[in-house]
């Protein structure tokens, strides 16, 4: 099989032995790359798939690239997927994933590696240096305790890439001792901070200033393996099957699907067709700044500014403290500065800020009720300074070092709620941790069904914005009086055209109204979504914030780039790899990967009876949105006509959701009694080996 797009080999880091081994990629080629590659590697390397906490030494972590990494495939060149059993979930931690951007995956490919498999546990703190084929295990004693930025900068220095006054630097040895193997680039480092070192539930992996594999707790997993950092620099090249086709498609994407710089449409509706704009939750503090992007991105979503704070942070990390800070800040400028500096704090500690999305409200409530700071949960944090940067720093320090309330929160927030006797907060919604012990994303399961249903069927908050672009476009139009660029009927028609192969043309699947929310159509939509993201987004590694492009008002017929013949996802894949994959074949590969993941969850102990949301989702109506006081979505009215309808204000019906799962499992060809994969379904995808292992564990689903 042709190996265009691949480096050709996988690096196995045996942390227990301090040895680096090489594994040919060819054996895993059928899994594509990224998450699919990672799941297949996990399946082979993890000898105990019953583990329920990622800090178990038997856990295996894979850091995986795609054939598109290191190429100009739009917004796919620098993404990376990390897989393994996570930390801090409830009632147990599942095999899960986390993605991050930047340039790490690009460098790894140029160094000659498609993935890194990390097994075992080092006897002492270790960091690993990869310079092309040279892999060195280093003592990390001098790095342990450093924050993520200081640790990366120390590694740059140790490898001969000390920072200067500006980014300008001479060609330098790629690594010390590599002679004439030169590079103008510094190494790409992925590392943990104190939160990971102390194995806290929300420790994450950080690369450069603001790229993080945040969700899943992989920082804690690395900490448990005594792995502080992996540094990589590569000076090689990746073979591309059809460079001309790749360049042509990239030009088409820019010139047809992205609004023009000369006559920009700032109100365009699409996923990838805008101009670069930072996704910060408060306005950037100055106009002296640039957009900043992952490798090959079509329009960067981050920024670097002259002011010296908040660089590279984006989205939720720039808002984790906003509700607190807004009560103290004396001006919008001060609010912005505190928010962005608070973002720097979580980046440096390597703590996933997402837990505060809903968790900060809960902590504040417990403090107001004297649960925290009272006799039950002593706390010496300066709560009187809640909302100041000082409090933010002390809170993050405590959580990252297992100090103060961090002692209890370090192993999971729902676990802490149980310990503190506050499980009723999961019923009344005061603790909005909706799925698997993880906080709601703001795209509430009671409103946005693809997000909610997908998350509970998966392993955590899926954080996939595929259909969520509808919410973004439509609700912003309602909230700010912007033009409604597509009416509901037009929009669902355009989206449904892209939903091949299962539901092409079926607009009903997009109806999240009360009458349709437990339907076969919504099950089909969720199925499409799970398969699309497993391959295109998490394995081919197209950026979540740019793809899929269902509709696009920059084009004459409003059709987006997804699945198109001139710039669809499969066009770039084929140009790089030389495959002749259709869009539908990519979906089928996504289905295969999704089935492998479900097999792993099944071995870990999952059963359909466990697949339920936190009680508040069923018991308390959704009445308060994170962004708007309404949640507009295209729904059919009583006459069957499409209109944007507010789907806020409802709960999910537990029994009906349970029935919906039966429909869903049936569509997937899984055992509807257990939710487990069946031999027939697995064999149909050439996965009988997986069925055999499930059968041996007595966890193979019954064929229908």
């Amino acid at each position, binding site marked *: 099989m042709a190996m265009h797009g691949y480096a050709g080999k996988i690096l196995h880091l045996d942390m227990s032995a301090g040895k680096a081994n090489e594994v040919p990629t060819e054996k895993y080629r059928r899994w594509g790359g990224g998450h699919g590659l990672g799941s297949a590697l996990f399946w082979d390397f993890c000898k105990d798939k019953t583990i329920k906490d990622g800090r178990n030494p038997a856990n295996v972590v894979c850091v995986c690239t795609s054939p598109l990494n*290191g*190429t*100009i495939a739009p917004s796919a*060149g620098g993404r990376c997927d990390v897989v393994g059993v996570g930390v801090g979930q409830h009632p147990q931690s599942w095999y899960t994933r986390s993605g991050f951007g930047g*340039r790490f995956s*690009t460098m790894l490919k*140029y160094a000659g590696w498609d993935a890194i498999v990390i097994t075992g546990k080092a006897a002492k703190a270790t960091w690993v240096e990869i310079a092309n084929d040279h892999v060195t295990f280093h003592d990390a004693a001098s790095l342990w305790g450093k924050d993520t930025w200081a640790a990366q*900068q120390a590694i740059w220095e140790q490898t001969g890439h000390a*920072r200067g*006054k*500006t*980014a*300008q*630097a*001479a*060609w330098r040895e790629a690594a010390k001792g590599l002679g*004439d*193997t*030169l*590079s*103008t*680039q*510094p190494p790409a480092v992925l590392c943990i901070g104190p939160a990971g070192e102390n194995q806290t539930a929300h420790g994450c992996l950080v690369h450069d200033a603001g790229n993080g594999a945040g969700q899943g707790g992989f920082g804690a997993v690395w900490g448990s393996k005594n792995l502080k950092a992996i540094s990589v620099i590569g*000076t*090689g*090249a*990746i073979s591309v099957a059809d*460079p*001309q086709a*790749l*360049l*042509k498609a990239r*030009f088409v994407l*820019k010139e047809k699907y*992205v609004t023009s*710089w*000369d006559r920009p449409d700032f109100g365009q509706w699409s996923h990838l067709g805008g*101009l*670069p*704009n930072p996704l910060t939750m408060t*306005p*950037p503090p100055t*106009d*002296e*700044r*640039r*957009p*900043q*992007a992952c*490798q*090959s*991105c*079509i*329009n*960067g979503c981050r920024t*670097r500014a*002259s*002011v010296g704070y908040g*660089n*590279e942070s984006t989205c939720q990390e720039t808002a984790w403290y906003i509700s607190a800070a807004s009560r103290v800040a004396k001006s919008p400028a001060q609010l912005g500065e505190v928010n962005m500096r608070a973002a720097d704090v979580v980046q440096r500690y390597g703590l996933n800020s997402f837990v505060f999305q809903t968790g900060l409200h809960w902590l504040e409530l417990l403090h107001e009720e004297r649960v925290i700071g009272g006799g039950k949960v002593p706390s010496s944090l300066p709560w009187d300074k809640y909302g100041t940067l000082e409090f933010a720093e002390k809170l993050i320090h405590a959580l990252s070092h297992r100090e103060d309330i961090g002692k209890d929160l370090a192993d999971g927030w729902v676990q802490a709620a149980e310990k503190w006797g506050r499980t009723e907060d999961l019923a009344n919604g005061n603790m909005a941790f909706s799925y698997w012990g993880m906080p709601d994303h703001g795209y509430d399961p009671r409103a946005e069904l693809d997000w909610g249903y997908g998350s509970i069927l998966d392993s955590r908050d899926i954080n996939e914005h595929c259909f969520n672009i509808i919410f973004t476009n439509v609700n912003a139009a309602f909230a700010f009086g912007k033009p409604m660029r597509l009416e509901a009927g037009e929009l669902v028609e355009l989206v449904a055209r892209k939903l091949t192969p299962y539901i092409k043309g079926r607009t009903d699947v997009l109806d999240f109204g009360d009458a349709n929310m437990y339907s076969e159509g919504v099950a089909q939509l969720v199925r499409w979504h799970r398969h699309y993201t497993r391959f295109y987004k998490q394995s081919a590694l197209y950026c979540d914030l740019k793809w899929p492009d269902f509709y696009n008002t920059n084009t004459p017929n409003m059709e987006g780039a997804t699945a198109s013949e001139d710039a669809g996802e499969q066009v770039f894949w084929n140009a790089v790899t030389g495959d002749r994959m259709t869009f539908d074949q990519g979906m089928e590969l996504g289905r295969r990967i999704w089935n492998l993941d479900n097999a792993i969850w099944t071995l870990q102990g999952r059963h359909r009876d466990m697949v339920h949301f936190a009680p508040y989702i069923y018991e308390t109506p959704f009445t308060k949105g994170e962004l708007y006081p309404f949640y507009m979505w295209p729904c059919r009215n009583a006459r069957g006509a499409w209109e944007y309808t507010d789907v806020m204000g409802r709960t999910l019906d537990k029994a009906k959701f349970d029935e919906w799962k039966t429909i869903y499992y049936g569509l997937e060809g899984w055992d509807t009694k257990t939710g487990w994969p069946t031999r027939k379904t697995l064999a149909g995808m050439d996965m009988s080996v997986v069925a055999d292992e499930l059968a041996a564990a007595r966890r193979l689903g019954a064929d229908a």
Partner: protein
Amino acid sequence: MDDHAQPPFLAVSRRRFLAMAGSAAALLASGAEVLFADGRLVIPNAEGFLVVDMKKCQGCSTCMMACALAHAGKASYNLARIQIQQDPWANWPDDVFMATCRQCENAPCVEACPVEPIKANKPNPDFGNVRMIDPKLCIGCQNCLAACPFTPVRLQWNAESGISQKCDLCVDTPFLGAKGGPGGVQTCVRVCPVNAIAFTPTMPDQGVETSYYVNLRGPAWRRLGMTTK
């Protein structure tokens, strides 16, 4: 400087010059480099230059990877004839540096090329006198790399093929699928998502290092909330 102090290739070239002195004007007009009696190599001006806006670049390195693709058919940083450098912890505008070949008026890399009788690195009169390295003639001495006065050096050492390479404004791009060079397409210019690289037929001031750094930020940039100063 006497003959003995010069590199051998220049001494030989001087004798060649004496035989060809009467044709100097014609040669210049045709685009060939000419060596005068004082040992000075006169190189006809290139008819195209890349200029960059370092305050605008988003650091996606798409230009680098596209450059390598168009020329070599592979994706790579090291094979790219434009090098984008970033420091994630530096502040704008010092966080990004864009290193492009400047198609110098008196190109030191051309002067340094020792290959005889035809230099491997020379202006190409068929393509607007773009300074190009002929891969079939390059002997891999790396003199051109040593001669480039800029940081980082604007030529690249292709370790795979053992020869030097440099920006040719996309004249020799077998994988571009379009005509390159002056009057044609420059891959990096066309692919840049933020239009932070431009082609100009006007030679920037050779006495001012920053003359290749231009302002390409227009009204749309301002509208996005970023300075156009």
